[in-house]
């Protein structure tokens, strides 16, 4: 379950104090300047230590967009606070009518002197309730033949009059996502990143980043190790689950698939490190990664048995006293997590869209 803004910030500031917040960033903007291999190892160590995930919207997404395409003024203005996790960002891409077909987006930004006037609605906006800023894909022109050409990349202060946030509760009962409305919101033209009409290109870079970022092999492997460990123990006097050969075979089968994906990721890493473009294999990382994440969630559910049923949201926070828990270890939030992570095959370009891309661009169909 997501941490509070305060806890998440405390964690990211601890990384910042170590110089690791910008593990993905170049040295000149305060990052580590690490090689791909170093970044990979850092992510793996973080996963193996069961560290929280970095909320990606600032450090992983808009930061790199700004230092790659932003003006000198924008770099100076935004990057230090992103790096130090002083500001919280969210991502305004999807709209009620534009999910998989993102290029159909309708949120308009019309010029008015030194400002844009923004009108429209973004949806499924993760953690917008905490956000100081939102980066948006907005339509600045409807003139060009390619729908993608009229889209621009705009930074909007969430405190601007006319911006409102409506919570969307997900089926597990948590509040992670939101609808963000823009009602005649005046945004200075200085907040446009790069060139007007080039937003799609910048945004696509982000989506590609999201594809490799969500493979999450090491985190899934960590969860599977936790499950194996619990299966080997007696819980509340029951026979250990490891006595059940069927169940252990299922764990082993997912382990095999995860090992395959780990080496697929390493092949990509090796190609890029030796100066080649990432191979076709990199295209399967996102959808396969989420499939395996969800396969492990299903195994947790199986392990929990009847203890998948209790819905006790207050015990999903890290400091809930053990003696008051209903269910133990992997059982504790098995079902809510299983429900919540059905999102993983939907967000960041659904698995169906990923397969369309592979069919078209990798297989040439």
């Amino acid at each position, binding site marked *: 379950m997501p941490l509070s803004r305060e806890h998440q910030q405390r964690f990211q500031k601890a990384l910042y104090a170590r110089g690791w917040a910008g593990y993905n960033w170049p040295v000149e903007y305060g990052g580590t300047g690490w090689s791909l291999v170093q970044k990979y190892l850092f992510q793996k160590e973080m996963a193996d230590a069961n560290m929280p995930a970095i909320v990606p919207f600032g450090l992983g997404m808009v930061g790199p967009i700004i230092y790659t395409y932003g003006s000198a003024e924008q770099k100076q203005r935004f990057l230090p606070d992103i790096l130090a996790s002083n500001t919280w960002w969210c991502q305004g891409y*999807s709209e009620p*009518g*534009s*999910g*998989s*077909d993102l290029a*159909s987006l309708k949120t308009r930004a019309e010029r008015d002197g030194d400002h844009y006037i923004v009108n429209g609605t973004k*949806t*499924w906006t993760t953690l917008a309730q905490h956000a100081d800023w939102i980066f948006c894909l907005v339509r600045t022109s409807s003139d060009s033949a390619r729908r993608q050409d009229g889209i621009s990349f705009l930074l909007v202060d969430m405190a601007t009059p006319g911006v409102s946030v409506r919570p*969307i*509760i*997900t*089926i*597990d*009962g948590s509040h992670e*996502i939101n609808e963000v409305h823009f009602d005649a919101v005046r945004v200075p033209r200085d907040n446009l990143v790069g060139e007007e009409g080039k937003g799609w290109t910048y945004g696509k870079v982000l989506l590609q980043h999201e594809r490799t970022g969500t493979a999450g092999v090491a985190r899934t492997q960590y969860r599977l190790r936790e499950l194996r460990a619990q299966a080997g123990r007696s*819980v*509340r*006097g*029951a026979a250990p689950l490891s006595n*059940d050969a*069927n*169940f252990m075979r299922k764990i082993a089968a997912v382990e095999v698939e995860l090992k395959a994906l780990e080496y697929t990721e390493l092949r990509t890493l090796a190609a890029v490190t030796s100066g080649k473009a990432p191979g076709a294999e990199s295209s399967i990382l996102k959808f396969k990664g989420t499939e395996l994440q969800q396969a492990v969630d*299903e195994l947790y*559910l*199986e392990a*929990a*048995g*009847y*203890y*998948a*049923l*209790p*819905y*006790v949201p207050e015990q999903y926070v890290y400091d809930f006293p053990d003696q008051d828990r*209903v269910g133990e270890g992997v059982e504790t939030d098995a*079902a*809510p997590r*299983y*429900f919540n992570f*059905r*999102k993983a*095959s*939907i967000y960041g370009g*659904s*698995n*169906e869209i990923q*397969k369309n891309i592979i069919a078209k661009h990798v297989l040439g169909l």
Partner: protein
Amino acid sequence: MDFSLNEFQAMLSDSVAKFVSNEYDFETRQASAAAPRGFNDAIWQNFCDLGWTALPFSEAEGGLDGGPIETMLLMQHFGRGLVVEPYLANIVLAGGVLRRLASDTQKSRWLAPIIAGELQAALAFAEPQSRYDIGDIGTTATRDADGWLINGSKAVVLNGGNAELLIIPAVLDGVSLFAVAADTDGVTRRRYSTVDGATAAEITLRNVRVDSGALLGTAGDGLATLEAVLDEAILAVCAEGVGIMQALTEKTVEYSKNRVQFGVPIGSFQALQHRMVDMFTATEQSYSLLLWATMASAAAADDAKRAVSAIKYQIGTAGKRVGQEAVQLHGGMGMSWEFDVGHYFKRLTVIGQLFGNADWHLDRLAQ
């Protein structure tokens, strides 16, 4: 084969279908789930007035003499409507035990008020260590003066937090079942919501003293009764599951016809069409197995027990696929609490966990 319904069955099916479509929309259901006891008292009373709580009981018990087929018809429509009122806990589980074992005195004390909607009941069939093995019972009953002293823990007792009557399996000459008033000294309950919008409780019994009138049936009768009642409960939740799968398949097909992306309804994409055909097929196959299993049970056929495991395995596997696909094809809408699809998916998931998951029943079939 004759699958036609008799007059009573057709009338019952029709009246439950009408209730669900006219009086139990998604908002009503959500309001029920959000009520203090996790269901709506007036709706429960309505079920009593309509005779549905009397369905499986004999005329002598004040019932309508219904059997597995009648329960199937009702539960299938309850599935379509995602009815959260505790029919399973009160009528199928607790009622199933009382119908089989209770004396006339016990029936008038416990069963009559359940049928009338004046009393909530629960059957504590699981323990913290038992997983799906109903014979794995650590709770004990020892003789004490003219009654018994009960000690033990019960896990995830459906409707256990609401119940005034708890039916407690305990070890005494084998397994025996006891009717325990929930307010008896020594009974402690931790009540919680369940992920499907209903409620359950962890129950601890410490030196709970009950009198001789608490034993249901004869000492040692408990396990066979539990097995029979849980088999009925499996058929009931599988019927509910089939209703849910039908609803999810219809809703997904409908959504795909209306949701436009890339300038066309997403239902025009062949990749999605085939997946909806798979949902439809899984649902039809499940319904077929449900009919076999329910009819085998109604006829007390030799293979009735295997049929119960077969349908539970089917709902566990096919239900999971249909639920996941319904959410996936609805995209973000399927993930939203405000929208019904995710709640159908969650109830289907819980049904998969109840009374033995798919693997548990496949093991039974493999033996």
